[in-house]
């Protein structure tokens, strides 16, 4: 019997596909729809303390090899978010699909405050987003840029909550291993990696203007998969905590590759654009087909296999 379930920080996921933050996770109904479409877990869109409109349009573009976005962390603020998460929690509980609540802030104290507030909604995990590449102008430099600041946020958040904590890292750094080790030492229960790559930029050559209103944005989708695989590989070589591999996972083979690099589970985001909401069921099915063809029974039989070969 082929089993694709995963235990993450003591919590069971039916399969390793996780809805990545920022995709569809804006309402309880959409989170539930994604769960019904086969996701092993779902992540809500990152929320902050106050309502935030984000950047003007255009905010997302599809290009030949992926997507680019500068949404700018639009969100309805933590008070609304708590209501939405509580509703989602009830329905997701029935489906046995864990909920990951993502959040961001501009300073360490606010990260801690948000962790405390969001814990009220009793999500299965918290994900602290310290790696948005599109908000430097008003939120300041991302906390994921350095080991020290990443660890400071991790410690502050851990103090406020007993809920398992994932820390989402950025690929746009000099040495992701140092940062991964630092957040592990600071108490992170898991690492999710990577956030979008870049920033990148598209210029319309007819008008000579940047297309994104924010001028630059983070790259995602198939184009960044090799970068994501390499970063996950690097992180898994230095930490013991589980890693959620995110970046360009579109097909089952991509998920297998990510787990071979050491990931315990995979984030799926841009693939919703390429294959629709059913992409979760499809990827899981494709993983199972791979396992059947290669006589694997459990994901652990090939997780991190690249280190052994």
């Amino acid at each position, binding site marked *: 019997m082929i089993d694709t379930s995963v235990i993450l920080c003591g919590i069971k996921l039916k399969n390793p596909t996780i809805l990545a933050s920022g995709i569809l996770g804006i309402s309880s109904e959409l989170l539930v729809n994604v769960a019904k479409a086969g996701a092993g877990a779902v992540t809500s869109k990152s929320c902050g303390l106050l309502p935030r409109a*984000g950047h003007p349009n255009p905010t997302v573009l599809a290009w030949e090899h992926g997507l680019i976005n500068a949404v700018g962390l639009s969100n309805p603020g933590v008070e609304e978010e708590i209501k939405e998460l509580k509703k989602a929690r009830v329905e997701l509980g029935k489906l046995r699909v864990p909920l990951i609540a993502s959040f961001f802030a501009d300073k360490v104290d606010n990260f801690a405050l948000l962790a405390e507030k969001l814990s009220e909604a009793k999500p299965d995990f918290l994900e602290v987003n310290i790696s948005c590449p599109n908000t430097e102008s008003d939120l300041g430099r991302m906390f994921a840029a350095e080991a020290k600041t990443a660890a400071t946020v991790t410690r502050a958040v851990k103090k406020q909550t007993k809920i398992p904590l994932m820390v989402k890292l950025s690929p746009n750094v000099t040495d992701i291993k140092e940062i991964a080790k630092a957040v592990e030492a600071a108490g992170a229960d898991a690492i999710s990696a990577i956030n979008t790559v870049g920033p990148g930029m598209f210029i319309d050559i007819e*008008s000579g203007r940047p297309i994104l209103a924010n001028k630059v944005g983070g790259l995602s989708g198939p184009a960044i998969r090799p970068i994501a695989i390499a970063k996950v590989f690097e992180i898994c070589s230095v930490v013991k905590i589980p890693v959620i591999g995110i970046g360009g996972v579109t097909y089952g083979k991509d998920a297998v590759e990510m787990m071979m690099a050491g990931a315990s589970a995979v984030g799926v985001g841009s693939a919703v654009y390429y294959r629709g909401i059913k992409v979760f069921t499809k990827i899981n099915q494709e993983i199972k087909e791979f396992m059947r063809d290669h006589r694997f029974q459990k994901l652990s039989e090939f997780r991190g296999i690249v280190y052994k070969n």
Partner: protein
Amino acid sequence: MLPKLVKIKKIIKENQKVKTFIFEERIKAIPGQYLMIWLPGVGEKPFSITNPDPLTIIIARVGPFSTALHKLAPGKKLGYRGPIGRGFKITGEKILLVGGGYGVAPLYFLAQEAVKKKKKIFIVLGAKKKGELLYEKKFKKLGVKVFITTNDGSCGRKGLATDIGEEIIKKEKIDRVYSCGPEKMMDVLGKICQRLKVPCFLSLERFMKCGGLGICGQCEINGVLVCQQGPVFNYRFLLKLPDFGHIRRDQAGLKVKL
């Protein structure tokens, strides 16, 4: 799909608030589908297709973006992405269109296609007052039977588009209703059609962030994505969505009353 820039060929002032933009471009589309219209350096918003060949859209001046669009002159370029979304399926033989205000935008395209299919077509054009009525002559030219209604009685019958719509459905034995306009009006129309057992299809409008790619979720109504599952819906389906007719999301994602 990155935005494609196309030149504005002609701009027609329809009334104080509304202009028709005709582009040097032809596209293939289904009535009810929309485009993301981009004004470089200013913004991007969804607009219904009024005619695919030459590409034509109706722009009502309602906020800063449409105000900027209204300042443009022929020869300037706008970008577009699309066509996007599920449009109207033209079925039935005697069809009624109900257009509230600038909601006539997708209905003109629909009427053109329905004429080609030799359907018998009626339209109710509703507006607050005479100066806001749109496309009356254009619909008549297509051979559509036009009924006018204004809230203040300054043109046509005084009252609501839905009242006259109900009369036409009964009198003419209408077998399909298509509408675009204020959501509250469409909700009332849907209820009438439900009662009279006539299938009714409505085109909705929501704030869209990701440009109709179906990934941001900003346009959702109770988990349904207007950008891709719509913008045209069967009223019977909308009945299952408690927020239809009542709630939309703003740019931050906060729910606000319609």
